[in-house]
């Protein structure tokens, strides 16, 4: 533990980050079994697992300050208590172009967020971010590979254009200019955290179902 409790804004940011990773991991995992081809099925499922692993570590860190444990933070809150960006909540399964557009935009935004967190004053968070960064390098390679295949493709470009204002909402305003630069687009008004996209209630219902089925069980 830190000698001094981290500021509540930092804990809030960790929780929002954890919610992003959990919900995106969940949405990505909806492709398991039906990705465009077998190798991609393995890859995208592994990426989903990676995101959920990151969520777990971030929830554990937050739980160290807020009390409870990672599972309680991940599954026992009401839908309105989740702080994830609407970007990660969109259900894109069935549309691979849009899924890859989100994957690339998210990984790019995430690289900015994680790099900043490695310099956090909260030593445990800085250490965790450094560990995440090593794994995220593989997620980015995967996104980049697909970007090179799909860049210029009409459906892919349309999806990027449609998702762009959502993607900006992942980052705090001061970091959005950098994302615009990396993605090569003009900054526009972002879809902010604080409200949920359509379909989040159903996702929450599904995501918490097992946990609610036997309250207090050790799995």
């Amino acid at each position, binding site marked *: 533990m830190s000698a001094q409790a981290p500021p509540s804004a930092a804990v809030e940011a960790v929780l929002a980050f954890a919610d992003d990773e959990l919900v995106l991991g969940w949405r990505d995992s909806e492709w398991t079994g039906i990705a465009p081809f077998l*190798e991609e099925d*393995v*890859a995208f*499922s*592994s*990426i989903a*697992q*990676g*995101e*959920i*692993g*990151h969520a*777990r*570590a971030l929830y*554990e*860190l937050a739980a160290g300050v807020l009390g409870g444990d990672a599972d309680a933070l991940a599954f026992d809150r009401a839908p309105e208590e989740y702080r994830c960006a609407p970007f990660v909540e969109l259900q894109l399964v069935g549309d691979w172009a849009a899924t890859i557009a989100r994957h690339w935009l998210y990984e790019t935004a995430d690289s900015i967020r994680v790099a900043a967190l490695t310099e956090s004053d909260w030593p*445990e968070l*800085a*250490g*965790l971010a*450094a*560990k*995440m*960064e*090593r*794994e995220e*390098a*593989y997620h980015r*390679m*995967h996104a*980049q*590979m697909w970007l090179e295949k799909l860049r210029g493709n009409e459906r892919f470009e349309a999806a990027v254009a449609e998702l762009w204002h959502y993607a900006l909402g992942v980052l705090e305003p001061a970091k959005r200019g950098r994302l615009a630069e990396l993605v090569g687009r003009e900054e526009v008004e972002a879809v902010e955290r604080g409200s949920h996209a359509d379909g989040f209630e159903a996702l929450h219902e599904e995501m918490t179902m097992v946990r609610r089925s036997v309250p207090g069980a050790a799995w």
Partner: protein
Amino acid sequence: MVTAEKVWEALAEVPDPEIPVISLVDLGVVREVEVDGERVRVEFTPTFLGCPAQEVMRDRLAEAVRALGAEPQIDVVLDDSWSTDRITPEGRRKLQESGFAPPHPRAAAGPTLVQLEAQAFRCPYCGSSDTRLENLFGPTPCRSIRYCRTCRQPFEQFKTI
């Protein structure tokens, strides 16, 4: 009387839950052992955050300490202190023998796709370096899939992180 040396010896016998040919000490996830009378503190630095074997590893480390008649305290360290460079030479040899190509040493900047596609990773079955990257991702977070053009055998490559 439990000594740190005895604890290290005992932990070196604990197999990795997913790649049991290699021990948790070979894998480099044990960072420190401190003995204070009957209490043994072990610093455990997990591999990948998404690895579902984390809890099993932690529990097996604790069991091994208990089997020595000591009281374990397993501290999980979630920073970047684990890297594939922590896998011991013995661990690398064991991986190779069981069909996993061991990871390349980590460069300061970390791996890139160009490197992974171009580098001559050796096939653990026939030794050929005529192999190609088939999938960056594999059956667990720590593995990629490669294919050997010489013996036509797909094989698992431990990811460098």
